[in-house]
Structure formats: C-alpha cells, structure tokens
C-alpha cells in the first residue's frame, strides 16, 4: 500500500474528511470484495499523482459499518468525493483509472 492513501476509521472519519483544502475521495472497501482489491493499486497511483490536489482515503466497511450506513453505501467499492466535508460525487462500482479520473475531473 502506498503511503499516499490515508486509512480512515470510525473515530477519525469526520475529522479527516473536513481537514485540509483539497477534496477527499473516500474508498469504501472490504477484504472480501474482489473488485475492491483491483482498484486499490489504481487509487494508490492516482493518490501519488494528485498530491496537493486530491486526498485519497479508504474506509473498511467491516470495521466502520455505521459510517457506511450513514452514507447509504449498499455496494462496494463505492467512492464518495467529499468537498468541504460534504459528499459532492458518488461513484459506485470498480472503474479503470481513465474513467475514474474523468468522473472526478471537475473537482481537481
């Protein structure tokens, strides 16, 4: 795992998504989800390339089910982009790098 991706927990979630000026893209994932594993390296790469413009964080829904419920996550991977601490964009399902960058492009 690259250091560029922040690991969130139930305790740190609210603070982390509100901190800093850049938008935060949160990856809701779990160990048992095959497609989640396939996008992890893609997110690592994007995090490395977008330092200062975008923060990427991951939340294990097994460890933080309350937060998944709060944002009505019903399918993983789900990516939610938070701007100023509020959800601004939601991407459901695993996607390739080019498509992900296109979907979040307006926030970069």
């Amino acid at each position: 795992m690259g250091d560029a991706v922040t690991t969130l927990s139930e305790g740190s979630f609210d603070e982390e998504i509100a901190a800093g000026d850049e938008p935060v893209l949160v990856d809701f994932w779990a160990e048992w989800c095959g497609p989640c594993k396939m996008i992890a390296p893609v997110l690592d790469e994007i995090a490395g390339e977008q330092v200062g413009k975008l923060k990427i964080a991951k939340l294990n829904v097994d460890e933080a089910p309350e937060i998944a419920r709060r944002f009505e996550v019903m399918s993983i991977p789900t990516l939610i982009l938070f701007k100023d601490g509020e959800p601004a964009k939601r991407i459901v399902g695993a996607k390739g790098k080019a498509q992900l960058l296109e979907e979040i492009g307006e926030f970069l």
Partner: protein
Amino acid sequence: MTEVRQVTIIGSGPAGLTAAIYTARANLAPLVLEGEPSSTSDQPGGQLMLTTDVENFPGFPEGIMGPELMMNFRTQAARFGAQIETVKASRVDLSERPFKIWVGDTEAEPTYLSESIIISTGAQSLMLGLENEARLMGYGVSTCATCDGFFFRDQEIAVVGGGDSALEEAGFLTRFASKVTLIVRRDELRASKIMQDRALANDKIEILWNHRVTDVLGESKVASLTLENTQTGEPSSLDVSGMFVAIGHRPNTSLFEGQLDMKDNGYLVVEPGTTRTKIPGVFISGDVQDDYYRQAITAAGSGCMAAIDAERWLEAQHDA
C-alpha cells in the same frame, strides 16, 4: 517502431493466466492485457473475482476464496516473467501478421503488435435489461453478491435465476439476509443436484416457481419487484430491498465480430480438440469458447492447451 511480441494474451481469468504461466515458462515473454477494474465479471481475474469459496478447484482441499485464487494465478504468471498490463483492448486486427491490438483510441497507431494471440476474454453475467434495474444498480441491484451481501443484513432480498450461480449466490446471501426469495422462470431448477439439495434444505431460501421480474421499483433504492406468473400472466409484487441477478452469461466477443467464427450465441469457435482457429496464430481458450462446461478448471486446462498450441506454432514458423 512498436516491438513485435511473440505472444499476447487478451484476458486474465483462469484460462488467460494459465496460458501466461505456460508461455512465460517457455521463454516467450507473454504480454497479458488483463482488462480494467469493473464490478462485473468482465474484469482482471474474471468471474472468480466475484465469488467466495471455490470448493471444486483441485489442490485446495479446504477450498479457497475466488479472488485469492486469481491473485495466486497472477503472481505465478508474473514470477516467470509474464508482463501484465491493466488495460483493456479496444480493437484487434487479425487480418495480417503481426496482429495489431489497440488500447484506447482505435484510430491511432496500434498499441501492440504480436506474432500470435491467445484470446481468453471470458464471459460476463447477463442482466435482465430493465431500465430501472440499471438506474438502481448499486442501490439495491447488485452484480456482486460477495461484495454487497454484507449491506443486506436482516433484510429480505431476491435472487433471480435457477442455475448453479443463482443457487450459490442465494446460499451465500442467507449469511446476511433474513430471507432470500429465489425467482425461477420455470417449475424446475437447472442447477446441479448438490446445489439444489443445499438450497432446498436452507430454511432462509424460498423458491418462487414460474415467475419472472418485469420491473424494479424504488425512488432512491430498491423497494419492491414487479413479477409476472409465466404460466398465467398474473402480475404480483414482492417487497425486497435487494435484487441479485444470476440468469446466465454472454461471451465477451465484440472485439472479434467479423474476424473469427462465432456460434449463434456469440461464443467463439475452435477446431475441435484444439484451441486453433481459422486464422493461423490466433488461439482461443476459456469460457469465451465454452458454453457447456464453463468451469475454472476447464478454462485453466484450455489455457494450457492454447499456450502449447501457440508455442508449437511459433516454433514451426521460426523453423520454416
């Protein structure tokens, strides 16, 4: 000038990665175009990426998780020098050698050139094709029971289909859901005996025979399904918060339309008993040419055959 590869493998399920292991060990430095992440089975690792326990792959007496098995295949291929790229072929031209393969812009120069190609693009799950099904995808409609079952704890959900994958999904989902209704078009199941026995013995599974789904209702997430009795035409409604569809597969063959022979159902055709096609140097393995067995082990077996067919064909070319 783009380097001409000896072997390029399109696809990275059990067939593609077995072909990669064999051709890599034969020093052919294979290039594997593994596909792009997706939440359907059309993704790196293929259909097993969406399964949990694989109980029938020989060598794993306690079973193994599908994604873990595929990660092992991939690691093994990489260990022998297979070059694995996380990209999806957008066009192939098989009209002359070296064959041309594009990634991304199909009007640009070809991305890769290859003396031989092994096609292992597999098959993907069919959906019902309803407008509201697409709208509610990820909001109660799921393509991946193993990914999403967790979110339906203590809820009532439906699985559509009567084959092995439908019954496997239904059984898996009873770990979370309070009740799973299996919606079956006919009055019998297509699934294997062992899967039928398990499903019929599971108290949480109720089978609704002779019904099909005609609509999925819900504002922001699935609330109910509209059903129709396939014998009487009588409509009814079923309140569920989730719908998982497992009604069959279609092969991923659009790249090859007009270039390779296909059956009426879209599956590619090989010379019987081999992986060869009417185009010398093009080989096919795995589910994309198999509408009958469709197992991980048969896909892996045919991937091995394709690797050996390609290796011998390349040798014959160089000797000529």
